[in-house]
């Protein structure tokens, strides 16, 4: 039994080692947006704006935030690869109008606005209101993807809510407090 267990762990490691060979393209975006985007055309200053927004949505505290996880690049990858053309266009259009809308409401572009002004502007955006604008659409989708990037990041799944790839067990009924790791 022991040998078999060893053998199986060896098999497991053998398969793991195969991963060193997985091409870099499925390891997630590393460079600047312009270098990996296929359909979208995002100017460098807009990429910076996206970084500022995700940093505001989930900031670094004593732990990393969305900016550190490059959530904005993940969001762009998803929009670029997984969104329909009309939604891609809406997203980019909303992004391009974002600063103007912010300036109209609080008198400054998003990057230059104070923390309170940023909050005032963000609170005004909502995809589920009666007549959502392209800015609303852009913001709601960026927020959703930022949350997805953050909660599916290696940091989150190893330090905050631990994802166990190999649980090796199932207990059908345990007291709730035991489960809070």
């Amino acid at each position: 039994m022991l040998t078999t267990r060893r053998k199986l762990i060896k098999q497991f490691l053998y398969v793991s080692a195969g991963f060193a060979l997985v091409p870099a393209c499925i390891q997630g975006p590393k460079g600047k947006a312009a270098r990996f985007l296929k359909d979208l055309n995002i100017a460098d200053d807009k990429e910076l704006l996206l970084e500022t927004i995700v940093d505001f949505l989930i900031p670094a505290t004593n732990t990393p935030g969305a900016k550190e996880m490059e959530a904005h690049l993940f969001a762009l990858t998803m929009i670029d690869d997984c969104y329909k053309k009309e939604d891609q266009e809406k997203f980019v259009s909303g992004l391009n109008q974002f600063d103007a809308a912010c300036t109209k409401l609080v008198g400054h572009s998003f990057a230059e606005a104070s923390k309170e002004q940023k909050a005032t502007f963000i609170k005004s955006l909502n995809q589920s209101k009666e007549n959502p604008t392209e800015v609303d659409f852009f913001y709601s989708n960026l927020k959703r993807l930022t949350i997805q990037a953050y909660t599916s990041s290696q940091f989150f799944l190893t330090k905050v809510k631990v994802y166990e790839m190999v649980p090796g067990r199932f207990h059908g009924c345990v007291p709730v407090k035991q489960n809070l790791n």
Partner: protein
Amino acid sequence: MSDNNLFDVIVIGSGMTGGWAAKEFTEKGFKTLVLERGRNVEHLKDYPTTNMQPWEFEHRGEIPNKIKEANPIASKTYVFREDAAHFVVKDNEHPYVQEKPFDWIRGYQVGGKSLLWARQTQRWSEFDFEGPKRDGFAVDWPIRYADLAPWYSHVEKFVGISGNKDGLANLPDGEFLPALDMSCIENHFKGVIEKNYKDRNVIYARCAHLTKPNQIHLDQGRGQCQNRNLCQRGCPFGGYFCSNSSTLPWAQKTNNLTLRPHSVVHSIIYDDKKEKVTGVRVIDAITKKTYDYFAKVVFLNAAALNSNLILLNSTSNRFPNGLGNDHGVLGKYVAFHNYRARASATFEGLLDSTTDGRSMTSAYLPRFRNLHKQETDFLRGYALTFGGGRGNKTNTDGFGTELKDQLANKELGPWYVGAQMMGETIPKETNYLKLDPNQKDEWGMPLLSIHIDYDDNDDKMVKDFTEQITEMFTKAGYTNIKTSDSKQAPGLDIHEMGGCRMGHDPKTSMLNKWNQLHTCNNVFVTDGSSMTSTSTQNPSLTYMALTARAVNYAVEQLKKGEI
């Protein structure tokens, strides 16, 4: 690959049943050629995603839109995700004709769909085999439960099935490895149902997982299931059963197996003078060259619809309309499982409890409608799966540190529960397959034309499930009950069956009680195409048992010189 083109046996297909035919024949000393139309997939070596963490998938599992648009059919199946899409046939590579909407989900590789299956392994019962005769549809099954019971045992011991002995006539017990726990919510549902309904039971759904491997499983190089629930990627532990981890390597060890991937079967060769089949014609998928291979016996295990296609394309002077098809029954009476209806709800009780780890299965409520006699305005009935769990309360409102804290909140929400119906459908002459007279694929094979639809019986069953599950959930105190009818096309259940059915009478069926062609005794068809009716249970276990039984019979006949 052997240079020799002469074998004792040729098995067409390397999936669930092809793997079993290969194992049984090679173990008994027969030189066996297994033909697989797709590429090779070797256990462990060819599971590229198996140990990837969630964050390592570029789109976190989601399939890019351009791939979805290019694959509207494949995209409908739940396994067509970033971690397993490489095991699913792409629409444009293998076109077919939909006379009526049919989502044909295929796995063209060594191991076939056994890599991807949902691993549910419930035996059929006497009620299922007697169904067509009792209720007057299709033709009578030429076998009964007792004929298959020892072969279920034979298969289960090797595959490794986790389950409980439940003592139910409508879901016979088998050879089981230990069951996992049922969850608190499943036990709650079981309690409510068994108290309120005399004829309904809720059990742990039996599944092909090694919860506690026996020596026979360790000998296959497989180990204990580690509850990863990432089976569709291929399992590094061999924790679930598939051809790749089990039957094929087992056959390989005998040195009697020759596996030929990239082998599109053109036809089964019938010799009009010898009045029997002599071999199989293959088109190499890559070079497109034609090769003939010869054997004493041919086992057809290409998966239900493709086995029909191969038989229809196997014409000779004796069989101008397809091998064994003297009566036009071939390709007709195709059926499937009705998986259209679902229900979900929440439960605010049992809030001090939750689950820990992962289960690979769920709870199961065997068929109760029309079991002993006809009671409703529809024929037959449905089984259902039931499962549930608790997730974190997730509040994504707001932004900043407040949002960040909310996302880290581990407080659990209420129990969510879900159920899905698995309905029997009635095989009908009007649900048929045929070869498209004009269009061919890139290997020169005629395209399969599919004409399959639901009927009034299926609609009535959906209605009954919806009413009954609402009543059962209500009695259980569940709230927010939502039911839905997906109206999904047939096919997405991936349980297509029939077209080459078994039966007593050569005038109305293709195969005898040994899955042997009535009119050509050295050809056996033991995959889903052989099914006379569909039952409600997941069919793979039954296909495997039929295959092992047919091989045993074929070997006896070979030894006697009958074939």
